[in-house]
Structure formats: structure tokens, C-alpha cells
């Protein structure tokens, strides 16, 4: 039976590690919220994109590099472009889904340990901010790391920068965060919509960049 392009393009270990990282973050988020509180969640949220981008190296490193020659195998096929598009698109969706699932850990802690409906609402609002920020920084960093066929050391540096961007964004947000977030639900929802929209736009740019890198191989670079 033929596999889907994503399953064929990525290795089993790559996919398993996505699940492991997501579950790990889910559990860590749960424990952080129970034992440390929102600050623990902030620290974890910053580290999550780092792991996802680091893992990306093993399947999509340099995928949108214009000097990418390793794709000649699939470029020699008429179906190659469609195959590559499908694999990249699925991977972006899965990464986005993993980020969302991973962030549900601290919401679950809120649901189990804090019965106060206002606190639960605040956890949901935190999710609505942390999740798109994680997604946004992941996508921004993926644009960099997929554009250049990096060495492992440079790749780790990029992941570190990605983590710093995420931390800075989250810390800034923490300072701006009102004491009772539930009083500002409309503002928080608006912030979510804006950040998530930007994140999706960046994801589309990332996708197009990957395809542009692939097709650029057909011409002078």
C-alpha cells in the first residue's frame, strides 16, 4: 500500500519524536501549572518551539534552500512537486497541531485542580496567547532554518535564537497581562485572533518559501 507523501518523506523516528515531544510538553505543562504556576508555563512555552525546530533539521533542513540539490530524485518525477507540497503542508499542520496539543497540558491541570471557573477561563485565555506565540516563533524560525542548509551547530544556534524570541514575546506579554484576565476576555480574544492570523500568514510564507526553493532548483540561482 502506498504511503502518504508525509509518511514517505519523513522517517518513523522523526514522527515518533514529534509525539514524544508533544506528550512531554503536555505533561511538563501540566506539572508546571500545578507546582510552579503560570511562570513555569511561560518557560516551557519558550522551549517548545526550540525542540520542534531542532527536530525539523532531520527531515526538512535546507528544504527551501535555492542550492538544494538533494531533491533531484523527486525533481526528476512529474509528481515530485505535488509530493513535496503535500509533505511540507502536512508537516506544518502537524507541527501546529502538536503545539496546540502540547499547550493543553496546563489547561488540563487547571480543569482538574482548580474548580474556580474564572481561573479555568484564565487558563484558556493563557492558552489562546501562548499557543499562537509558540506557533508564530516556530514558523519564523523554520523560515530561517529551512532556507539555508545549516550545519548542526548553526542550527542549534538558530533554535536558541528562536527560543529567545519566544521568551521575549511571552515575558513582554506577561508584563502586559492584566491581573484578572477574565475581565478582559474580549481583548484577549482579539489578541489571539491577531497573533494566530499573523502565525498563519507566516506559515503560508514558510510553505511558499519551501516550494519556491524547490522550484528555484529548476533555474539559475
Amino acid at each position: 500500500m502506498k504511503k502518504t507523501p508525509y509518511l514517505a518523506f519523513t522517517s518513523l523516528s522523526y514522527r515518533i519524536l514529534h509525539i514524544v515531544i508533544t506528550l512531554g510538553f503536555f505533561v511538563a505543562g501540566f506539572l508546571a501549572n500545578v507546582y510552579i504556576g503560570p511562570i513555569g508555563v511561560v518557560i516551557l512555552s519558550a522551549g517548545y518551539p526550540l525542540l520542534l525546530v531542532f527536530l525539523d533539521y532531520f527531515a526538512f533542513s535546507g528544504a527551501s534552500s535555492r542550492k538544494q540539490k538533494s531533491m533531484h530524485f523527486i525533481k526528476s518525477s512529474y509528481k515530485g512537486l505535488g509530493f513535496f507540497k503535500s509533505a511540507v503542508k502536512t508537516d506544518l499542520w502537524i507541527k501546529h497541531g502538536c503545539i496546540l496539543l502540547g499547550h493543553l497540558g496546563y489547561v488540563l491541570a487547571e480543569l482538574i485542580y482548580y474548580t474556580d471557573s474564572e481561573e479555568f477561563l484564565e487558563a484558556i485565555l493563557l492558552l489562546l496567547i501562548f499557543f499562537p506565540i509558540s506557533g508564530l516563533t516556530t514558523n519564523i524560525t523554520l523560515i530561517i532554518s529551512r532556507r539555508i542548509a545549516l550545519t548542526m551547530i548553526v542550527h542549534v544556534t538558530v533554535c536558541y535564537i528562536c527560543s529567545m524570541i519566544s521568551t521575549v514575546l511571552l515575558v513582554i506579554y506577561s508584563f502586559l497581562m492584566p491581573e484578572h484576565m477574565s475581565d478582559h476576555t474580549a481583548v484577549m480574544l482579539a489578541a489571539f485572533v491577531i497573533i494566530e492570523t499573523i502565525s498563519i500568514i507566516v506559515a503560508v510564507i514558510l510553505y511558499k518559501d519551501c516550494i519556491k526553493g524547490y522550484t528555484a532548483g529548476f533555474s539559475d540561482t
Partner: protein
Amino acid sequence: MDQSYVIEGQNIKKSFKNFTLDIPEFKLPKGFATALIGENGAGKTTLLNILTGLRLDYEGNLRYFDKFTEKDIDSIPEVKERIGYTGTDTYYLPNWTVGQIADISAIVFDKFDYDKFKKLCDDLAIFGPADFDKHKKVHALSDGTKTKLMLAGVLARETDLLIMDEPASPLDPLMRDKLCELIRDYINSGENKSVFFSTHNISDMENVTDYAIIMEQGKIVEQGFVEDLKEKYIVVKGEKEDIEKVRPVLYTMSQSNYGFEGICLAENLDKLAGLDIVTETPSLFKISVAVMKKNSLIK
């Protein structure tokens, strides 16, 4: 008998900063193994990439299998389906496993036969004495084994034309011999199957080469069936004292303390009449080196 062609091209041009590929007319004979010979930077890979559809930014017209144009290569699936291509060692992503390569091949090529691929991997001893290992990663393979893997992948497909970029270079002598056998088997496996490969290992590939195209500085400087080329050129050997007399006639000449050896056009042999010379049929290697030397920038 009229010769038919698997690819025909006119006015193929591709310019880079310090190099221009300029081929007014290109014909790849159908049903034969054709070698593309030339020094580094002659434009062999650029030409192969254009023919395979890996490079689309060129001028000129191409006709594939008597019916498709250069525009069809990216719009009609049949064209690329009928062409098998192997490239350099960056052909596969280093992190791919052999199993992934089989899976991807099954998706992107309609006529990929997994069992044949597995058998070819075993026949070519890609995993040494071990069994087929679909978890083996490309980066764990040597350059020669990567080439064997490319061959297994492309030969497991049903194609009408194989285009190979330097397939012999990373291979050991035994495997080069096997490569010649595989090429011959491929050509004999059906009517009008053709092979086009670039090579620097002319001697090793000579016994499978039917037709040769020699390139220099982006241009085709010589081409023809090997048997015809061997009639067109001739090896001349003679005494030391005749060196200056033969020099204007010879394409290339090597000297020793005892005499000289060189190559000239057979039609010019009468210009050497009266000299004490010995002639013999040249190998494709000698013809290629002579033609390349005549056109090379190397002093």
C-alpha cells in the same frame, strides 16, 4: 537504415557568468548507449539537467520520443515517467532511509516495482553480505554504494531512456564492469531503450559505448558512433627524428626518448607519406583525450 532519435534538440543555450552552453544541434540515437565525454566544466551536467527537465531556464527546442516538446516535460506526466535519471551523491536527502526511498519512488513514479528494487539491492550487494535493510540511512552509505542505490532505484522502474550523470566515477572496477552489464541488459530489455551517461572513466565504459559525444567549453566538438570515430582517427607512432615533421598533422603527441605517439585524422595520413611510422586503431579514450586536448583551455 534511417537512424531515429530519442531526444533531438536545436539551438540549446544556457548562459552563466563565465560559461555558455551553446549546442546548435543535438541528437541522441535511439536504441544505443551514448557516452557524454568532456573535461570538468565542459557543460555535461548542465546539458543532462536540461534534457532531464531538472533545469528549465534555457533557450532552445527539444523533442522527446518523437512527439513531446520541451514544454511537455513539465506538463505531460508520460515524459518524465519514461526517463530514468541518476545524479550525483546529493541525489537523495542524507537522512532518508532505503525504505523511504522505496516508498517515495512508489508515490512519485507510476511504474516502480518494489520487488525488483529489493532484488537489485541484493544483486548489487548494497548491504554487503547482510539482508535488505530498509532502515539503512543514505548518509551511512559510501559514495559507491549511494550510486548503486540510485541504479537500483532507477532500474526498478519501467523507462525507455536512462540518463546518468557520472555513474561510473564513485564505483570500483568490478562494479564498473557490472554497470556496463546493467546498461547492456537495459538496452537489450526492449526495443528502442536508450542510455545516455556522462563519464570521465572512458576506458572502463568503452565496451558499452555505442555512440560518443565529446564536449568542450559548452560546445559539442565531436560526436559519432564509436566505430565511425575509430575510422575517422588513427594512432601514429614513429621515430624521434620525425617529430617536427608530424607535429602539424597530429592532434596530440606524446614524446619519449625513443619516439612519439599521437593521433591524427585518418584523412591526413597521406601527409605523413614517406615517414617511418606505424599506425593502429585508437581506443575511444585516446580519441577523446586528443579531441579534448585540441579544444581545451589547459596548456
